[in-house]
């Protein structure tokens, strides 16, 4: 593994004002209960330890930090209030700031919210008889695109959260 980069470690720590990452004593409760462990091999305790030792750059360029399902179980169960979830979010933000590898799905989701104001797109429904209906054919009211002020506010929020 590469050499630790304490500068990057400092950047992550600065993003975690209230989260006492350094207090982690590796009890492994987070990993034992992690929703994303069984399928996606996310090990929250390992991420905490890597950040603590300064191996931030490897994490920021890896896919693993994007596998967190943000179920927040680790936040609830952590006996040291060291919250792996917040560390993972900080790593994601660092990746975005560096304009490094952000998964396409995340970027798509962001642009969709910008355009439609919705986290999920409107979908067509299929009946048992295999007929397909959209909102219009069901006479549901039309969904208007968000106001212009929404887009500017949304972008502003993204920037603030990224800091």
């Amino acid at each position, binding site marked *: 593994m590469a050499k630790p980069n304490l500068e990057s470690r400092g950047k992550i720590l600065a993003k975690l004002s209230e989260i006492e990452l350094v207090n982690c004593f590796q009890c492994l409760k987070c990993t034992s209960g992690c929703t994303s*462990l069984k399928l996606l091999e996310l090990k929250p305790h390992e991420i905490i330890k890597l950040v603590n030792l300064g191996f931030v750059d490897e994490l920021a360029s890896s896919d693993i930090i994007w596998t967190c399902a943000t179920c927040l*179980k680790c936040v609830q169960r952590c006996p*040291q209030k060291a919250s792996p979830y917040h560390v993972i979010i900080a790593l994601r933000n660092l990746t975005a700031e560096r304009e490094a590898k952000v998964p396409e799905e995340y970027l798509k989701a962001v642009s969709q919210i910008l355009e439609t104001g919705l986290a999920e797109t409107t979908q067509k429904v299929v009946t048992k008889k295999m007929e397909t209906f959209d909102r219009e054919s069901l006479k549901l009211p039309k969904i208007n695109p968000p106001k212009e002020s929404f887009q500017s506010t949304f972008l502003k929020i993204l920037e603030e959260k990224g800091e």
Partner: protein
Amino acid sequence: MAAWMTKVGVYVCHCGLNIAGVVDVEKVVEYAKNLPDVAIAKHYTYVCSEPGQRMIQEDIQEHGLDRIVIATCSPQMHEETFRKTIAEAELNPYLLEIVNLREQCSWPHSEEPGKATEKAKELVRMGIARVRLLEPLERRKVSAEKSVLVVGGGIAGIQASLDLADAGLKVYLVEKAPSIGGRMAQLDKTFPTLDCSACILTPKMVDIAKHPNIKLLTNAEVTNVKGFVGNYEVSVLKKPGYVDGDRCVGCELCTKVCPVKVPDKFNEGLSQTRAISIYSPHAVPKVAIINPNYCLRLKCDKDVCGKCLEMCEAKAINFEQQPETIQLKVGAIVIAVGSEVFDASKMPEFGYGRFQNVISNIEFERISDASGPTGGKIHCPKNGEPPKTIVFIQCIGSRDKRFHEYCCRVGCMVSLKQAILAREKLGKNVNIYVCFNDLRAFGKGYEEFYRRARDLDINFVAGLPSEIRSTADGSLYFDVYDRGTNKLLEMHSDLVVLANGLVPSSDLGKISELFHASRSTDDFLLEAHPKLRPLESPTAGIFLAGACQGPKDIPDSVAQASGAAAKIIGLLSSGEIELEPLKAVVDKDLCSGCRMCEFVCPYVAIEMKTEIVDGIERLRAEVVEAMCQGCGLCGSACPASAIKLQHYTDEQVLAQVHAALVETKVKGGR
């Protein structure tokens, strides 16, 4: 003595490099030499050492010094040492001022030596300003009762009582429960020797009952404490047990006929007893007691039931028994009220209280104990079958910022012991796992005990589960990630034992108020000094023993109890006690009788007296000297400045404040 006549000696201690490594001690000495009334100023590597102390004594005699300032570590450490030093040189020991250059200067400012030296100069200047106004004080002697109150009859209270009684002191042992024995009586075996708990405890319990110097008061609580070290007046409420203790022979015929079932507290509610019963198999005193919350006759206040009354051949049952208040006079008090076991239902993820087969470590003790509800057979509470897999989970409620930050100090060893007992009782075909974070085996023989557990094929999983789930038939399953193999283990278990930590008793707040015994941040009772005075509370005459001061195992509880007893024997052996002269004094002419001081005094040391002055009745405050602990609250509360605290008078303190604000440059001036 007027301040301008004084000759002050100033001594700056290096404390090795603790002070001199940061503060430029030579500069501080040069500075001090030019301050008013300073006759001599020196620095020395260790002022507390024998040559250091001798240097001061010689200077006092040679130069006629009459005030001493020592700039060194905290007065908590060595003020008493230096008082003795100057007393040996025939200077009144209260003409001394300690300036704290270590805890309040060099340690916190180790990064900024220049500024630290400036601060050291200022602190020394303040000390000199104060020392010039100090007055000689004399210690007083009061007579002391040669008797002791011990509160709590667990192993700590038992050990303290026996040691005190053997030394010839009269002991009153007050226990809340109907029997002494405490937590230790509930245990099956003890680590690391696997001695049977009852075998080593019961003889001591019997010794208590038989000892001519011990008066045992069970089913009783302390309700009021007045007085001060050497002379406490204590009220104890003995609750009615509705059975005459002198007549009852402990035959338990009454329990057999009583129709009312009651959860058995001694068995942690795992079995039932009756409304009239003997508290535990080894109870001392072995006397039946009626639980008034359940007994039909006592609840209805009518002549109903009465089956026990008919059955008792000794005619011991007495429904007319009344509560009794007993007044005691004692010289010292030992608080040994112990701790409670953490309630794991506060951590819902582990299912304690929801899943019958998730049990606590104290419940395991009762299940494993031969005199317990299962006769010592380990089985799953849900179906009564012996478990094929048992998992122990560590650090429940301890080392956890959500509950208790401290380590419970017994959980690891308790689980090791219980795992070993399970292996011995259930044989080699049972799978036993211990899920741990850090396994702490720190005491004498403890690491060897850990190895013994590994020898017995007990598996250790380095990791804690996040949650436990249950199937419909009551068996349990959970995931736990193991640090050693880097694998997620999918565990199935018939029985899960939670290593619940020790927590402060729920009534410890009441007890701390009753005895003026302060508490530390972890809510246990606070010791006077964490290293040098661990056996006593900051309040004089109140001693601590066992888990009420912090989680402890049996060896540590016994050691602390014997230590506290030895301190009390030393304190009371001469029959008189020396009291510090740092007391409040009332100027009667200024006192308006507003009672502010009486209201703020935490030690009930202010008494209001009525006096007739010029034919008019006037209320005046008076300080009960022996009760005053010299905290100074009354002095700051008094609107008329009628109360002054000796050694900390307004003039003395304000001179120090003034010196902090204004630099005194001219030698000899005031």
